[in-house]
């Protein structure tokens, strides 16, 4: 019920009632999302969406920082166990 999904804002416009809406892509499915609670959001930003409302902009720096810490943990671990799968992370060239 409290499920919220990240999506990428493609286009921003106002609806006939003057409400700020964003056309947002969720992995290929595009839906209209209300952006009234996220006035700073611009095209290209990722937003976290719940029942048609963007509740927060996804903080890219924080996301990458968290992921980097996890990645470092993995790389330390790789000294112990060989990794047979490549990482899904696009910015990681590691395929060992």
């Amino acid at each position, binding site marked *: *019920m*409290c499920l*919220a999904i990240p999506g990428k804002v493609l286009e921003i416009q106002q609806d006939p009632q003057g409400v700020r809406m964003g056309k947002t892509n969720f992995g290929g499915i595009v839906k209209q999302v*209300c952006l009234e609670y996220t006035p700073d959001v611009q095209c290209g930003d990722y937003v976290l969406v*719940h029942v048609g409302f963007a509740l927060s902009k996804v903080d890219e720096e924080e*996301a990458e920082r968290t992921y980097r810490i*996890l990645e470092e943990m993995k790389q330390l671990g790789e000294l112990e166990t060989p990794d047979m*799968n490549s990482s899904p992370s696009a910015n990681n060239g590691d395929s060992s």
Partner: protein
Amino acid sequence: MKYLDEYRDQNLAEKLVQEIQRTITRPWVLMEVCGGQTHSIVKYGLDHLLPNEVELVHGPGCPVCVTSLEMIDKALAIAARPDVIFCSFGDMLRVPGSHVDLLILKSQGADVRVVYSPIDCLKIARANPDKKVVFFAIGFETTAPANAMSVWQAKQQGVKNFSILVSHVLVPPSIACILQSPLNRVQAFLGPGHVCTVMGYREYEPIAARFRVPIVITGFEPLDLLEGILMALRQLEQGRAAVENQYSRVVKREGNRIAVELVDKVFDVCDRKWRGVGSIPKSGYKLRGEFHDHDAERLFDVKEIDTKEPDICISGLVLKGVKKPHDCPAFGKQCTPEHPLGATMVSAEGACAAYYTYGRHLHSQERQPPPAHATETVLP
């Protein structure tokens, strides 16, 4: 980054589990508050990856599950009226009332519609001026901004035939209620990431301090959950009890101020009855006086309702983290997602439905119970 797949990496998950193993020196009991977290934990089998010393119990954070039977019966009484179009999120349709559910009413001819967002109801109301459009506004703080906006816009735009039946619940009072119970076994919480996206986490700080309990605001992907568990265990092992934020990519300490401001304009805090738990003071929202024209409870004179819960169902104890789904004699037998007896089996996020969906009824002894003294451990 797409903010989903990156947080489902199996190798990273294994490393986190190893780190958890290295961190713990004794048994601990953790509760994930939110039903979405429960669903992820059971779906990905995270509880099975963890060392036996770490027990996860499942919290009350499924609004579908905790909506009181009286409120569901009220919804059913309103939905049965011929002058009403009753709109709801899809997962409320099969929640059993005392006698029927919304889906049965729909099959009997009632105009019951599933909507993706409460805002969709305004369009339905404009298109059907001769009908009364009622939205079943359930949810935790995560859903409150959407429900508040629907009423706010209805008032601003003069959509007079739209009202909401409010059954909002709040997380912090329910956590405090669990911690005050003599049956409580929970030593740390994984806090609800999306509730805190809206509300921030300031209001959790006095709870952590008062009850000496670590609270880690946690996301919903497998790596989020494992990292949240690790952060909570580190606090427990170090004797700390603070609020920490694992889900920093979306949660800020102050939350979304714009959303909270509108929620405060539309809703007022009230006492609320939780299904299976009972009444918790100041644990819900009701509409403020200036929005009475959009308050379905006032607009429809619903008579005193005589509710009836099945005797065998233990969903109340499951919601409080005292019992697990497979402790119930009806689990997977008389009670299944097709024929649910209690609300924790109806919603996909209910602990019983999650256990059933991912096959836990087939092999309920898959995991050794934690050592008996785990339940006696007190916070340092």
